C-alpha cells in the first residue's frame, strides 16, 4: 500500500498571523514538502494543476521534474491533470518526458477540473466536459501505445502520421488513475480501461465514497480486468495531528474556519463527523484511516491533504514527521493484516514493465488466452486465477 501527500497548491493567508506567502515562497515550499515526503518514508507526492489564483501549480511536469532530480524513491503524481482542457498530445509528451527523467517514478490522476472559466480560457466548452474527457483520454492512450497515430475526433485537430516523443520509458506508459467526486461516467471510464480510480473523498461523506468505489469495483470486474476486490483504488484524506488531541483541535480550528472551500460553513466538529477530516492525536488518525477499509475494501493508495488553508511550512513539516514516525508505520502493518494475497499493490513502473515482459514472453510462446487485465499491468495479481 502506498501513502503520500497531495497538494492543491493554494496561496492562503495564515489566519493566525495575517501573513500571505509569495508565489515564490509557496512554490519552493512545495518542493521542500516533496523532499520531506521522501525523507520521512512516504511513497507518493502529487500536485494539483490550476490556472487561476490563488493556486500556483500551473505547470506540473516542471515542478515534478525538478522534484524528481531532488528525490530518489518517491512516486511523482498529479491531483489532478486536466484531461479536458489540456491537449492530450501535450500530456502524452510531457509525462513521457517526465517518466524518463524520473526513471519511471511517475503516474498521473486525470480530472476534469473544478473552475468553469478554465474551459473557455483554453478554448473548450464546459458543456462538453465529459465527452472531452473521454475522447482526450482515448487519444492519450493511443499516443502512448502506438508509435504512429492517425486520428480524428470532435475536439482536436486531426493527426496523420503523428508520433509522440519521447516514447514512454521502456515502452511502458505511466499508470493512470481517474479522479472524480461524483461522476459515474468517470468511474465507468476507469473500470472500462482497468485503470485506477481515485476518490477525492475529503469533501464528501463516507457513504458517497463507498457508493462510487463500489460502482467502480463492480464495473472493473464486469469489464474483465479481475475481480472487484482487485480493482485499483486510491483515497484522499485530510488530517491534522498533535500528540495531545485537544492541542490539535485548538491549533487547527482557525485554519479550518477560514479555509478555502469549506471555511465559514459547518463547524470543525460537524465537518469531522461528516467527512474523513480527522483532527486529533496520531492514534485517532490511525483509527479513522483504518476505518476507510471498512467501506471501500482493501485499497492501494492513501494520499493526505496537508499543506493548505495557510498552514505555515514549519507546521506542515512537523505534520509530515508525525505521519512518517507514528502514523504510517502502524498503518502499513495494520493494512497488511488480513489483506488477501490476490489484492494487488498499486501498479508501478517496475510492475508494469514486468507485466509487459511477461506478456511478450507469452506471445512468443504462442500461448493464447492470457488473463484479462494483463494489458493493464495487473497480470501479476493473476486475476480470476487464470
Amino acid at each position, binding site marked *: 500500500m502506498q501513502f503520500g501527500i497531495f497538494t492543491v497548491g493554494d496561496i492562503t493567508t495564515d489566519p493566525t498571523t495575517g501573513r500571505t506567502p509569495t508565489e515564490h515562497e509557496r512554490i519552493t515550499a512545495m518542493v521542500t514538502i516533496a523532499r520531506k515526503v521522501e525523507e520521512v518514508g512516504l511513497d507518493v507526492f502529487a500536485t494539483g494543476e490550476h490556472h487561476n489564483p490563488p493556486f500556483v501549480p500551473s505547470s506540473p511536469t516542471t515542478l515534478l521534474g525538478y522534484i524528481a532530480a531532488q528525490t530518489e524513491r518517491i512516486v511523482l503524481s498529479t491531483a489532478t491533470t486536466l484531461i479536458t482542457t489540456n491537449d492530450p498530445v501535450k500530456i502524452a509528451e510531457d509525462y513521457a518526458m517526465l517518466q524518463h527523467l524520473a526513471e519511471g517514478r511517475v503516474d498521473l490522476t486525470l480530472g476534469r477540473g473544478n473552475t468553469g472559466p478554465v474551459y473557455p480560457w483554453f478554448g473548450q466548452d464546459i458543456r462538453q466536459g465529459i465527452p472531452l474527457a473521454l475522447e482526450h483520454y482515448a487519444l492519450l492512450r493511443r499516443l502512448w501505445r502506438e508509435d504512429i497515430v492517425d486520428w480524428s475526433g470532435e475536439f482536436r485537430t486531426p493527426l496523420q502520421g503523428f508520433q509522440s516523443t519521447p516514447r514512454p520509458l521502456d515502452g511502458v506508459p505511466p499508470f493512470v488513475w481517474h479522479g472524480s467526486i461524483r461522476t459515474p461516467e468517470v468511474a465507468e471510464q476507469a473500470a472500462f480501461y482497468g485503470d485506477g480510480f481515485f476518490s477525492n473523498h475529503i*469533501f464528501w*461523506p463516507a457513504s458517497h465514497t463507498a*457508493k462510487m468505489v463500489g460502482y467502480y469495483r*463492480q464495473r472493473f470486474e464486469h469489464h474483465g480486468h479481475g475481480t472487484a476486490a482487485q480493482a485499483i483504488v486510491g483515497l484522499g484524506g485530510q488530517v491534522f495531528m498533535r500528540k495531545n488531541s485537544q492541542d490539535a483541535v485548538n491549533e487547527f480550528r482557525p485554519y479550518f474556519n477560514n479555509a478555502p472551500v469549506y471555511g465559514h460553513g*459547518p463547524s470543525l466538529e460537524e465537518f469531522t463527523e461528516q*467527512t474523513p477530516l480527522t483532527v486529533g492525536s496520531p492514534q485517532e488518525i490511525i483509527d479513522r484511516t483504518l476505518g476507510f477499509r471498512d467501506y471501500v475494501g482493501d485499497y492501494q493508495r492513501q494520499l493526505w491533504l496537508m499543506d493548505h488553508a495557510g498552514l505555515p511550512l514549519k507546521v506542515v513539516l512537523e505534520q509530515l514527521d508525525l505521519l512518517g514516525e507514528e502514523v504510517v508505520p502502524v498503518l502499513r502493518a495494520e493494512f497488511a493484516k488480513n489483506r488477501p494475497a490476490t489484492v494487488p499493490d498499486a501498479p508501478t513502473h517496475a510492475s508494469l514493465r514486468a507485466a509487459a515482459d511477461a506478456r511478450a514472453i507469452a506471445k512468443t510462446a504462442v500461448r493464447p488466452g492470457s488473463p484479462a487485465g494483463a494489458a493493464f499491468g495487473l497480470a501479476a495479481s493473476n486475476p480470476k486465477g487464470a
Partner: protein
Amino acid sequence: MTTRRLAVVSAGLSRPSSTRMLADKLAAATVARLAENGIETTVETIELRDIARDVMNNMLTGFPSPTLDAAIEAVTGADGLIAVTPIFTGSYSGLFKSFFDVLDNQSLTDMPVLIGATAGTARHSLALDHALRPMFTYLHSVVAPTAVFAASEDWGSGDRRVKTLPDRIDRAAGELAALVAVSDRSATVRDPFALAAV
C-alpha cells in the same frame, strides 16, 4: 390499497407560521381528495427553518449533512410536492430558493407540484406566477394550474362575492391529487450509482 407519498416544504420562519398553516391545509385537502379515489397518502413535512444551517452549509461545502440528505430524499423521492413560501421583497424567500438550489437540477423532473405563498397583502400574489412557477418549470416539474396565495386578511374573510381561501385550496388540491394519483415517482430508482441487477 394504492399508496402515494406526498412531500410538503414550508419556508415559514415564525412559530406558528401562516406559511405552515397554508401548507398543512393544502396537504390535508390533497390527502382527502386522494382518499376519495381510494388512494392512501403518507405526508412528510419539511420545515426549512429546522434545516436552514444545513442548507447554507451545503451551499458552502457542496454536500448535504445527514439531516438535509434525509429531507432531500423525502422531497425528491415523493409522488407529489406542496411547496409554500412567504413572499419577501417581491419573491420567494432566500431560504426557500436555497433549498431548491442545493437539489440536483434533475431531481424534480416530472414532479407534480402545488405552489403556495403567504404575505401581508394580496398585492404580492403574482409572485407565485412570476417567481415560483418559472423556477419549477426550469426544474421540469409539473405545476398545478391553480396556485394558492393567502394574505393575512384571507385567514379571516368569508366574503361571499369572491372565491374564499378554502375554495382555492380545494380546487388546487383537486388538481394536485389528480397528478399525484398517476405519479409513480416514489417507485422509481434515481441513484446514478445503482447497478442493474445481474
